[in-house]
């Protein structure tokens, strides 16, 4: 077991990455190949699982040659994001109010629990009845089902504050507002972001399910249309766009999480500490 401590040359590193990913590609290729063959030979019915080549041509058509997917893509993305923003806004405000004012929390709690145990999806027909046929109903469903995880995570974060730290603040004679701003709010951030991540996922589900129930545009409509035309390849290609939306939403939140709750990750801590040192130096110069 001897490893040289010389830095590996760049070409070597690229080779290394290649070697690391090669098995993945090989496996992927083997799966796709086996899949293609088993559909082609009739082992699997193409209605149930279409050929990879058919999915690929559907992707090319939807995303490149025709480009039909983009309008639907942005509609669903907008619904999910706006719904999430509304749900998160209401959830965070209610959580803050509940954390600051105990009676409020007591009286809000039963309704929050009721809302939690009701499957949000069940509200779809009612939401469509209430908010109508436009984007409104999709946004509303997205907001409703993303509300709870955000509310509960934020509230938990705000309430479950380390007692020693709170005692420290009290001993310093901090006001309630100061305790909230300097202790509770920052301490709640990690949990809040965890809630945001769940909320984003559920918001997307809300938008898509509402689109299944009633809509003219959006990837949900497109997908159910393709499915029931038994155009499975196009349907799977559309499903892929939902995955992409999901990934975009998740990683944007991850990005924000990393920057705002910087103290949890070493690399971010180091970056933040360098930035603060610079500001400090700049101020010292003046």
């Amino acid at each position, binding site marked *: *077991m*001897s*490893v040289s*401590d010389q830095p590996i040359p760049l070409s070597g590193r690229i080779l290394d990455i290649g070697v690391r990913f090669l098995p993945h590609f090989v496996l992927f290729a083997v799966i796709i190949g086996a899949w293609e063959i088993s559909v082609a030979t009739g082992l699997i019915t193409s209605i149930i699982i279409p050929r990879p080549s058919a999915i690929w041509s559907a992707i090319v058509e939807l995303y490149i040659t025709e480009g039909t997917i983009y309008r639907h893509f942005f509609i669903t993305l907008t619904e999910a994001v706006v719904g999430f923003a509304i749900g998160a806004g209401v959830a965070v405000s209610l959580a803050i109010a509940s954390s600051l004012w105990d009676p409020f929390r007591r009286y809000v709690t039963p309704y929050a629990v009721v809302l939690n145990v009701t499957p949000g999806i069940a509200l779809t027909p009612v939401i469509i009845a209430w908010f109508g046929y436009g984007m409104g109903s999709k946004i509303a469903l997205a907001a409703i089902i993303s509300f709870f995880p955000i509310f509960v995570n934020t509230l938990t974060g705000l309430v479950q504050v380390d007692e020693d730290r709170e005692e420290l603040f009290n001993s310093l004679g901090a006001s309630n507002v100061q305790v909230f701003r300097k202790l509770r709010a920052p301490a709640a951030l990690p949990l809040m972001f965890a809630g945001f991540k769940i909320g984003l996922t559920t918001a997307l589900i809300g938008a898509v399910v509402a689109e299944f129930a009633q809509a003219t545009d959006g990837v949900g409509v497109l997908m159910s249309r393709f499915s029931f035309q038994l155009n499975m390849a196009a349907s799977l290609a559309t499903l892929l766009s939902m995955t992409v939306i999901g990934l975009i939403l998740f990683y944007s939140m991850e990005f924000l999480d990393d920057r705002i709750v910087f103290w949890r990750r070493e690399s971010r801590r180091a970056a933040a500490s360098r930035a603060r040192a610079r500001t400090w130096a700049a101020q010292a110069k003046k």
Partner: protein
Amino acid sequence: MVKHEQSMAAAGDVVVSGLNVGKTFAAGTVVALENANFDIKRGSFVSLVGPSGCGKSTLLRLVSGLIEPTSGEIEVHGTPVNGPRADISMMFQKATLLDWRTSLENVLLPTEINGTPSKADKNRALDLLKLVGLEDFAFSFPAQLSGGMQQRVALARLLQTGADILLLDEPFGALDEFTREHLNTELMRIVAEVRATAIFVTHNITEAIFLADQVVVMTSRPGRMAKIINVDLERPRPLSIQTSVEFNKLVEDVRETLGAV
């Protein structure tokens, strides 16, 4: 060199020995232990003391067979160590009890690993719980026990293996001072009673001297055995021995060794 009766009787033959033992981590960049040579006699109690990173835990794990040395060789009962073995048993800083098992079931775990526990095994486990003073808590779950009680269960489990070489890695390090002193006294009594050989890792100098026949002082960067100090205090040892002149001389000696390097 005055040794207490039991170990005197058994003294003479070496049960654990190391020759030029070395261990490096992270592809050779971190030297955890360098060139350790030692002989541990049957029935003796050896303390390894030193600051963090001096390789004392590494040495213990090497003896247990959990990790393999990079160089040199360790022998136990005359055979080279190449993996965990039945004649060695180990106890950790945390009690590492299984939450879903009662004290008794936790003590029986080593027996279960080697086969189905017999009635005799169960009785032995109950006896061991009695030995550590927990007969009333045999059917309690770990969450129902205090930290000190959990460590006593772990001690009973250690003894249940029937191994005659006991490796203890700061077993009471996480407990408060009073509990620790109490458990140390218990440990001394029990180890003598079962006539085992013990290797005890700690960073507390007083504790190391109080328990041991020999104190191995280790220093860091790289981890190295700096000095072996014989503790010629009579047994049984009361707690008050810690205030004696002899004891404090030994403490002085260890401090000097640690500071000198």
